[in-house]
């Protein structure tokens, strides 16, 4: 059995799991963990979109 994710889905899945682990391990209280995890996820997604557009611009 194998699965094939698109580039975007793979990046979002990666961001989701990594953000949860970052949130739990890098902060001490529950609220801080949730806030930091959400912030990491937002940065990951924003970075993905920016990098995608940058690559599009370089190509064209």
């Amino acid at each position, binding site marked *: 059995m194998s699965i094939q994710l698109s580039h975007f889905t793979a990046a979002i899945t990666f961001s989701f799991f990594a953000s949860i682990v970052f949130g739990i391990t890098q902060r*001490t209280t529950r609220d801080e963990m949730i806030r930091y995890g959400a912030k990491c996820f937002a940065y990951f997604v924003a970075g993905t979109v920016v990098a995608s557009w940058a690559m599009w611009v370089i190509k064209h």
Partner: protein
Amino acid sequence: MSKSKADAIFPEQQQSTMAVIAPVVGWLVPGAGHLIQRRWIRGSLLMICVIAMFALGVLMEGKVYGLNGGDLLDMLGFVGDLGAGCLYFVTRLMDWGHGAIQLASADYGTKFIIVAGLLNVISAVDAYDIAIGKKE
């Protein structure tokens, strides 16, 4: 030894034992370092995240690096993969993770597997911090 002295010593011994056990167990089984310290939600979330990332990586036909890659980057990949503990050993034992180079998603799979291992190392260090009382 008086009771008050025993009370003062045993928690410290327990803490130092946990400081050794928690990171080792946390490395071998993702999230277990938190679970044995009764951090149920954190431990479960870490377990789900690391196992899901590793499993997705294998399902995407990512490569699992062996000890003798013969290349510096392969060795670094091996170190990252090894961070996943039991997941790595099971994968090697089952002879999974050969890496399908013809698939673009297989390269993502390889990265998923490495990062799952590295995230597990961070989790094990966090379990150690909890065990020594540096973190709640």
